[in-house]
């Protein structure tokens, strides 16, 4: 029974979503206020509110994670859907907090926060109705860590790719005013490429270990002879190919810039599809 998040946990999670939504809107308001009057009171209040809400939302998420682990008595991460999605959301929120403190990148929050909110929503939907039951083996642990780790890296790549597309569009249409930028396109491209490189390595390991799991007929997760038709496998493989194309851009520079960013966003959408598809897989 402890595997299923309690109403209290879900309530706190809903509160966290509300607070993070406030952080998202405050961040957008801050961006608009700063472009009009960088030193104005509106920009300052929005900045404080956005930061405060981001910190509060992250703390709430961490609190729910601890509460859930405490109730279950299992402190290992990624043990069930609820915990896994929460972990992903918390990692991404922490990435925003770290980046904004160490290497500020304007606008990062309102591109990554929607992903965080999506993950929290998925935690509510799939965490309650379909608790994930894993059979602990070395392969499955490696598979989960690499797959989820890859997802975090791809989420960052997707969000930063989205930033790149937004920024490049505004630059080309001469709508990006001084003070409205997100950091240079060069930096965004660099972050995308780094994230994709890391994510690709993790996804490759995740795919191999996942295949070992699903191809072994002795395991309950086995997909049988039609494993290659499984949506999760198909989506994961397509995502892998997409990211391979992104990594291929230094060799074929025609792919660099906007195309790389578009592929990063596409790859991340496929990764979300993979994570959703996994919820409908038989056996687990």
């Amino acid at each position: 029974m402890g595997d299923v998040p309690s109403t209290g946990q879900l309530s706190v999670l809903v509160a966290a979503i509300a607070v993070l939504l406030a952080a998202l809107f405050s961040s957008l308001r801050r961006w608009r206020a700063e472009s009009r009057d960088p030193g104005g009171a509106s920009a300052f209040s929005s900045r404080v509110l956005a930061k405060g809400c981001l910190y509060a939302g992250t703390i709430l998420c961490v609190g729910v994670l601890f509460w859930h682990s405490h109730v279950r008595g299992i402190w290992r991460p990624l043990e069930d859907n609820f915990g896994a999605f929460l972990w992903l959301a918390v990692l991404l929120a922490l990435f925003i907090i770290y980046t904004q403190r160490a290497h500020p990148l304007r606008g990062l929050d309102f591109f990554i926060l929607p992903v965080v909110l999506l993950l929290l929503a998925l935690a509510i939907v799939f965490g309650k109705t379909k608790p994930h039951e894993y059979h602990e083996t070395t392969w499955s642990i490696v598979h989960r860590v690499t797959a989820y780790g890859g997802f975090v890296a791809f989420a960052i790549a997707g969000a930063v790719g989205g930033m790149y597309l937004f920024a490049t569009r505004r630059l080309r249409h001469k709508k990006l005013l001084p003070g409205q930028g997100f950091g240079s396109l060069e930096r965004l491209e660099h972050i995308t490429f780094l994230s994709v490189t890391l994510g690709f390595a993790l996804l490759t390991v995740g795919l191999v270990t996942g295949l070992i799991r699903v191809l072994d007929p002795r395991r309950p997760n086995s997909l049988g002879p039609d494993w290659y038709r499984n949506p999760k496998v198909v989506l994961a493989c397509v995502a892998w190919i997409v990211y391979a194309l992104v990594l291929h851009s230094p060799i074929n520079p025609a792919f660099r810039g906007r195309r790389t960013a578009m592929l990063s966003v596409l790859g991340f959408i496929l990764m979300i599809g993979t994570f959703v598809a996994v919820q409908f897989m038989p056996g687990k």
Partner: protein
Amino acid sequence: MQRLLLLGLNHTTAPLDVREKLAFAAAERDAALAAFAVRFPGCEAVLLSTCNRVELYISRETHGRPREEEMVDFLADFHRIPAQAFKDHLYYKSNRDVVEHLFAVTTSLNSMVLGETQILGQVRDAYEAACKAASCAKTLNPLFQRAIAVGKQVMHETKLNEGRLSVASVAVDYARNIFENFSDKTILSIGAGKMSQLVLQHFAALSPGQLLICNRDAQKAEALAEKFNGRAVDFDRLAEHLVVADIVVSSTGAAQAIITRPLFESLRRQRRYRPIFLIDIAVPRDIDAAVGEIDNVYLYNLDDLQQVVAQNQSYRKEAVAAATAIITRHVEEFDAWQRQRELGPAIQRLYARYHRVAQDEVARTRRKLTTVSETEAVHLEELARRIVNKLLNDPVQILRQSDGVHTPAGQYLHALEKLFRLGEQDDSPEAPDEGDRHE
């Protein structure tokens, strides 16, 4: 009586593609002034052509030539373009409005970039060119000298040029939106004019990996390269330089685009599709607008950058008010001075004429009166002088003060000259007075 006229267009009335059609390079401006002098002899003219404006200031006799349509035709004929191509974008001003406009131009209140000082130099250049062409004389000389002085005063006494964005600073800001690190980037400057120098000054502060200066005049390129610690390169190998460039600042006087889409398309592969930031601050434009449609190419022309700069203006309303007050005071002073200058000789002629009439009448009376002593004769002359002075005092005072919309000094002066025949060589009155008639 001289009439001041202005025909022109600027960034608020005409888009860049119209302005560039009508723009005058330095050599063209000199040729245009010469052509103007031939077509309208005796007429003063100053031609101001910058990236943002083309303005023809003239001074001519009140009922002389050219008229507005003739000025339009002159511009159209000189550039060999139909007048319809730019006519709708023109503004036409006369007399006091011209003075107000020119003062607003030199103080940058009429500029897209409020507080910019470059316009002052451009007005001075235009004025000097007109002086050299001997097309600037008794009316435009003092006008332009005062306009330049007003420009300087506003820049010194107001905060108009403080905290402003410039085209160069905005260009650098955009470059920072594209590139993170400049130590491995190559900046290419095509042209070595003043605008290029201004922009390069800002870009040089970013410590780029390489700074290339490419100009038709190799000596100018060398000089600029030395100034910014760059390297002068051959203009004929522009395509090769474009391959290595990450940022291009183009400001040549070329009449047509020097970087076209086919040229740039052919270089993309060699460039390995690297992003490039093209800053085209030339008028006419050096870079074909279609180049900006290519992937990973960010093309900004002068209008794009200046529009950003213009948005900064709303923050300096107080400085604008102070500058406007200075301009208003100088317009009043100039107007009064000009009126005085125009009226002074006419009033002198008026007094001289009627004093002579009075003295003639005194002499005639003395001839009729046989027993007039010398002392009495002096008194009679003094009497006649005082009567003339008193009679003319009120109209002359009103004439001196006439500066309202409904009492323009020019009209009064014109009436004065007509009514009292002041323009005629022989100032003696033709009509006999009543007494003479009776005789």
